[in-house]
């Protein structure tokens, strides 16, 4: 079963890259138009979190990409 299947880790990596990009995009937008009613706005956590998710996602997506031999 596993032989021809795309690895679950690849799915997770791909989703993290997309989610990371969305969160990072929202974070960069927030640098210019700060969100209301958020504690610690100066921390710009969305930017850091988005970058971290993209990095983790890329790691998984590349490491477990379809067709890569184990």
């Amino acid at each position, binding site marked *: *079963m*596993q032989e021809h*299947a*795309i690895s*679950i880790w690849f*799915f*997770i990596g791909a*989703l*993290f890259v*997309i*989610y990371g990009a*969305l*969160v*990072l*995009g*929202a*974070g960069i*937008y*927030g640098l210019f138009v700060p*969100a209301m*009613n*958020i*504690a*610690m*706005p100066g*921390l710009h*956590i*969305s930017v850091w*979190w*988005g970058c971290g*998710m993209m990095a983790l996602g890329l790691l998984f997506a590349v490491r477990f990409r379809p067709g890569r031999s184990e």
Partner: protein
Amino acid sequence: MIATWFFQAASGRLSLGPVDLIIILLYFALVLGLGLYLKKFTKTSEDFFMAGREMTAWIAGLSFISANLGSLEMMGYAAATYQYGILVAHAYWIAAIPAILFLALVMLPFYYICKTHSVPGYLKLRFGEGARSLSAISFAVMTILMSGINMYSMAVIMKVILGWDIHFSIWVSSLTVAIYVMAGGLLSAIFNEVLQFFLIWVGCLVIPVVGLYETGGWAGMVHRIQTNFPGQDFIHMWSTTGSFTANPMGVHWTGIVFGWGLAISFGYWTTDFLVVQRVMAAKDLRSAQLGTIIGAFFKMMVPLIVILPGLLALAVLPFHLVPESQGNLPGAHTYNEALPLMLARYCGPGLLGLGVTALVAGFMSGMAGNVTAFTTVWTYDIYKPLLRKDAPDSHYVSMGRWCSLIGVFISIGTAYLVMNFSSIIVYAQVIFVFFIVPMFGTVILGMLWKRTTPAAGFWGLLAGILTSFALWLWVKLDPSALRHVAFSEHAKDMAENIYRAMWSLIANVVVTVAVSLVTRPKPDSELTNLVYGLTELAPGEQFSFFRRPITWAVAVAIGFVILNIWFW
């Protein structure tokens, strides 16, 4: 239409922006796509019900812990932490880690080597049809009931927090789970649970990270809690349990150790098929054991995203949360809103969508766990032995697929029943203690003592269930009986459950031993691969030191001891 519905969400406590909605919709698209993609890999009953028994240790372990990490549990324990403080972390440490390690090292070899499909299936092999039918039917009823209760409770929370329509929440999330489980069976459920595990962590971890930054670390948080709630101890796990009245839960350390840490914990983690099924799907015994230990490690870490947010809420929220009964007061926020309020406090657009996705993912992983466990127990332990014994394999796969859908519809029906009779929720944990706790006594005696007889297996199980029910009824009819059942008139609901579980286990063990001594045991030849001493367990010596399950189990156990001492 869906977009219109989503944008109406602004009427809740939190309001979502377009980025948040894209994140949530993308999540639903991915889980459905994953389920449909995996359908082609589930052709036989072994594929559908046991995921082909091909899971690696990491996948089995993360799925094992994800099936347990429901969003209701996350929000419920964050709420309980706001009420009782770090005492609630016992649910993740003493009430989980010893039992999970025991499952990995002692019980899994028997489950795995006898090649059973379910825990009731083991009881059939060990004790016969009577014990299997009693446990299978009670488990199936309990699972569907719990699934419906969770579904309704989740929908109510989504309505309060996000303004989502209750019916929409119930139907959309349930049908999504039904489609992906129907398509790919346990394989699909497990893969989605792994995905959900990562989403839960990445969505919720932002709270402790930013929260501790805001409070200036652990010491700053403790200082703020002491300032906000002078004279109350929220940060010690054991030092306040020397008497029933010294802690807000009204529990003594004996109850925590023997009731919570032994009866409830071992009952749930070692015999509740919802979680055990995940590791039984591992590709070999060593992977099953390592997967369980990986699960134990992450279970030990869960307080980071559940307990710590509850403590941070005590430290940083500018108002005090109130019990559910006072939730209707103007401007009041209830205990159950602790986690969502913390999400709203720290998460801007994008991160908020991620946090809400984490809650939805938690709900769906819990529900998929219930549905797949119900489907397997129904097909293998009720339908096959009692209704249709000799059908072709494809018939049981088909039954499994339809049963997934039917299980979801029954859960939805239960959710609507709960909507009209909300007191059922109060009894959910009680029902859980009725059925699951005695099963542990029966299974463990069956595994470790070959003298345990088939009659004892059945009567011990029944005695445990009836004892639990009788004690509950006694306190219900005469509340002063609490001082006998829970040793204290001050015991709260959670403490009463803990002590009732302890009595139920004692009754189960006493009756099982007594009946065993006066009835005829099975011959040794019928107990091969089922009982300690008659089962050839895989020797760990064939693996190097770092590849042995025992090595990592000891490492987790050391971490468990250190954490308990640290937060004493």
